[in-house]
């Protein structure tokens, strides 16, 4: 019991440390930039999945569903982002009435 609670305390502490790192990436270490913030956010989600949701203790079916979620999101966000990131916008002359 104590070991489980200690592990949960460690997970929560890690989450708060990552939250602090997110702030540092935003306000202190400008070199990290937005990419750093995004990477830390995804890391926090992974820590919650493994630390609080105990994904590592589940069987292969659960892993399959979790992997499917990541794959579907990657396809959605990846292919969905291709349009705005690859489209060239040319300025036009617009007449305002």
């Amino acid at each position, binding site marked *: *019991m104590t070991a*489980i*609670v200690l592990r*949960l*305390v460690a*997970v*929560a502490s890690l*989450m*708060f440390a990552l*939250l602090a790192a*997110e*702030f540092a*990436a*935003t*306000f202190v270490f*400008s070199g990290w*930039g*937005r990419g750093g*913030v*995004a990477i*830390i*956010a*995804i890391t*926090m*989600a992974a820590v*919650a*999945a493994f630390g*609080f*949701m105990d994904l590592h203790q*589940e*069987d292969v*079916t*659960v892993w399959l*569903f*979790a992997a*499917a*979620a*990541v794959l*579907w*999101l990657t396809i*959605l*966000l990846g292919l*969905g*982002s291709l349009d*705005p*990131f690859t489209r060239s916008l040319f300025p036009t002359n617009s007449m305002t009435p």
Partner: protein
Amino acid sequence: MSDAAAHEFQFASAEHQRETAISGIWLFLATEALFFGPIFLSWIFARHADPSAFDVGGRRTDLTIGLANTALLIASSFAYGVGLALIGFGRRRGMVAWLAIAWALGAAFIGLKFGVEWRTELSEGLFPGAHFSIHGPARSGAQLFFAFYFFATALHGLHLLIGLGLLAWIIIQAERFTAENHTPVHVVGLYWTFIDVIWLILFPLIYLIGRAS
């Protein structure tokens, strides 16, 4: 189903029933991830159209409340984890106490988000529309940001409200659960932490990216 070792007729054993329930909630959470996916995609689209104007909206959000709410949800997932561990050892009263703490932390999130933050933003004219209070060249981009903000936080808040209802149901039904038979506590806990995970992605999109250099 009062007997700890009992299971429904369609399952070979109580363990089979537990595994099916856990797999089922993970499949549901996978569809929920896809449900929130287009909202994240809309953020990418809207911000890419005019990043500087979009970030003007992001900088008008209340960072203090956003940070407090993130801390509340992390603490809430921790409290739920402790409650789940306690029922695994048959300590029902301890479980109820920790789940009540998790519920209170979730309710505090709702109170801060909708009772304080939304109210302030609405009074400041930040809801997109004719009376939107940000003017100048950033107006359109900032409106796009706040359209994303209000929709995403409303949807997340709705999920949290459902989670609060489920958590209350677990607390009310606590007498049913034993060290051997507490699958519903586990299933609701996975949903509860998933709401936390969604917020962990929404938090930087709303409060941090627009402020990052």
